[in-house]
């Protein structure tokens, strides 16, 4: 991986993280895995709320975004990565922050 791939990783990480978050939101909590703080463990399957308490999906979104971004960054040829405009990093980053603010405004009504 060349340093030019860092740009690709940064662009992909935010996008894949948000994609996984929205997927979980739209599918009532589907995720690669869940962490149950009350049980102190990671589980692939959803556990009963009465005994397991609320799950944390955030770790799953982070891990999924990291793995997907690393793999996709490695697939992108170095010449493509070097030609990719560096402005995409902050444009996509800003777009992700705006998407978060727009989506999370639901908590303020």
């Amino acid at each position, binding site marked *: 991986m060349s340093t030019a791939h860092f*740009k690709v990783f940064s*662009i*992909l*990480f*935010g996008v894949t993280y948000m994609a996984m978050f929205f997927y979980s939101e739209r599918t009532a909590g589907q995720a690669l895995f869940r962490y149950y703080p009350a049980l102190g463990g990671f589980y692939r399957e959803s556990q009963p709320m009465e005994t397991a308490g609320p799950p944390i999906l*955030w770790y799953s979104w982070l891990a999924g975004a990291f793995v997907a971004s690393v793999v996709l960054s490695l697939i992108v040829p170095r010449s493509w990565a070097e030609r990719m405009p560096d402005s995409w990093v902050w444009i996509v980053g800003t777009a992700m*922050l705006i998407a978060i603010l727009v989506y*999370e405004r639901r908590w303020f009504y």
Partner: protein
Amino acid sequence: MIQLMLIVHGVLAVFLLGAITHQAFAVARVRPTAPAQTVVDRFRGVHSPAFTNAIVLLFCLTFVLGGLLYPRYRIDVRPMLEDMQLRAANGMFESKEHFAAVGLGLLPAYWLFWRLPLRREYTDSRKYVTWILAFVVWWNFLVGEVLNNIRGLFP
């Protein structure tokens, strides 16, 4: 133990806040011509590339500690916020976790843009990515402080 982690998380966040704010102000300076006269000039007149590795390290450490504190928040704090009908506070925390993730993902490109010798073609991206990270760090710091003191703020 959890209290110690929370304090260290807060202290690291303060260091990070100072470093990224220095750099965000410094990168906004178009062209340093005259010697720094005012406090603001001196604040902006730092050798900003020197902060880069420290910012990356502090962001990662603060992030990891925040991640370790999260389960306790989910069990103890969030139900309390729901009992107190503080939906907005829950929403602020949700935005904090997402902003932190986006900021973490930007770090490799941020490091690349600030790598010495500074490359002229990265000037704009260096500035905007630094400002994005500064916004994320400030937002998350303020949200964290509000949530940490919420029982006092909303008795």
